[in-house]
């Protein structure tokens, strides 16, 4: 019985498609492998709102240094209330409008953002 044989053209084309798919998959996942990977925290839902968590953490470290009694749990509880059915832009707008301005190392920023930065500092 004659086995069906793959033509050379089919094999080359299949190999090309496989290579392209592999490259695409690698391209999609590579940045994630190369970027900073953070240990999971109980506050990842909140920290996910930060666009640049590394910079936020750098700023938050200054706040942490001056707030030895900072309670991450209490801050997260407060933030989750503020974020209820609202996105970051809306929360920050409300802070600014209502005068909830915090100081980190002298920098004046919306209180919720300051809390997020402090949480990001770990």
């Amino acid at each position, binding site marked *: 019985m004659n086995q069906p044989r793959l033509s050379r053209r089919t094999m080359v084309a299949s190999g090309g498609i496989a290579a392209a798919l592999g490259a695409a998959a690698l391209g999609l996942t590579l940045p994630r492998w190369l970027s900073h990977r953070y240990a999971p925290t109980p506050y990842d839902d909140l920290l996910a709102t930060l666009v*640049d968590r590394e*910079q936020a953490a750098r700023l938050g470290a200054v706040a942490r240094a001056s707030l030895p009694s900072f309670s991450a749990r209490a801050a997260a509880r407060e933030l989750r209330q503020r974020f209820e059915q609202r996105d970051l832009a809306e929360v*920050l707008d409300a802070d600014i409008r209502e005068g909830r301005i915090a100081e980190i190392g*002298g*920098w*004046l920023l919306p209180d919720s953002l300051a809390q997020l*930065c402090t949480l990001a500092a770990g």
Partner: protein
Amino acid sequence: MNAFIDARAIPTGTILQPDVAIIGGGPAGITLALALAQTPLKVMLFESGGMEFDAKTQALYAGKVAGVSYLPLDASRMRYLGGGSNHWGGWCRPLDPIDFERRDWVRYSGWPFGIRELQPYFRRAQALVEAGPWSYDRSTKPMAEVAEPLALGSGGVYTSWFQFSRQRDSVLPTHFGERYASDLKRVANLKLFLHANATHLSLAPNAARLDHCEISTLNGRKFSVKARATVLALGAIENARLMLASRDVASGGVGNGNDLVGRFFADHPIPRDTATLVSFAGDIPGYYFNAYDLNGALVRPAFAPRDDFKRNSKVLGSLTTVENAVELDEVGKAAVITTALSLGVDASNAKAYSVGCGLELEPDPERRVTLTSDRDILGLPRLKLSNLISDSDFARYRMTMRELGRQLLAARSGMMRLNLKSREGWLAALDWGDHHLGTTRMHVDPKQGVVDADSKVHGLSNLYVSGSGVFPTYSASNPTMNLVALTLRLADHLKREMR
């Protein structure tokens, strides 16, 4: 033309008898002399110095400073014709309406009248300081057409405007002595004496009027001036010194029956680099740093608290200017990136600037000048300035800065860092405006003020004080243009009274 008279040639024992004697040839004295021109009044002005700086004359100002660091008393003033205008920066801005009000959060606040009383004099004062057309807060619209200003969200701070004096269209502020010397010489009813130092105010035995003022020169001549009305225009510090030192009839000094002369001294603290202001969009217009010529008015913006914000937040006046570009450290960069990204703003071209300011102080009777046992070569006791500044003065300014920072965030135009927090930090950054204020404060009640609403010394029928020493509260505005306006008002009063 009346040439100026060298008092060193006046024979000892001479008694001069003008209608009005003006003691001091700074902006107030010169303004008054010019304003009394073309009246029937015979006016004489006595200036301690000559036409130029002279170290021996300047040394008469030397004194002691205690408390918060301050420029030496012989360095913060100028003792020759033109007085303080010989070293001023030319910054002008009218007082705000709230400056005249009694504010329940500001001790000892309240003028005897409102801004309406001074408004008729502002335009003439503006002309005398040569600050160009009256633009100030009318500059906002036309300047926005020059270049878009830094946007602020709605709130308690707004963009106000300074104007600058410039002598005869040059870039210099108006030096009153040099600028108005020829005008003064043309005043037919004026005699101006140079090198004439007032050393004593001699009251009549009943202590109800000034009998005469004694004048001494550095070459040993002594004569007296017996005027119908005498106006002290020596500057806030020296007015108090002369009044306190004249104790032969009134033991506490002239006009000092209620121990107020010399008290309530003030100046404008000018702390440097109080804050860092970041513009997310990058460069801010050059007119924030360098005055811009707007149709003949040199203007420069400053951030000022609105009157309703002052009331609601119980803050005092302040004028905050953008000074120079600065670099951010890593934390600063992190703050800008994090905040801008979170607000959905592109801050890739963000620029940072240092911020400076001038502050209004709360009146304090313990910030004062007193006599010491040291005497100058004319025999006048030297002074000690006890300089104080309270933490609440700094804290109030910080509140205004926080509001400005909030408004920048609201507009998504920028953000701020407050650079000074501790008292030590504030004091280390502190400079002063050399705006001497408040030693002979104005109040209708003799128990609360040295002069009445007409600048006349309480209890004396013919002695007046002119200049910023009579300001009961100090505003954050620079005093020269305002004291000139107040002096023009005094001139009108004297014209009415001495008809």
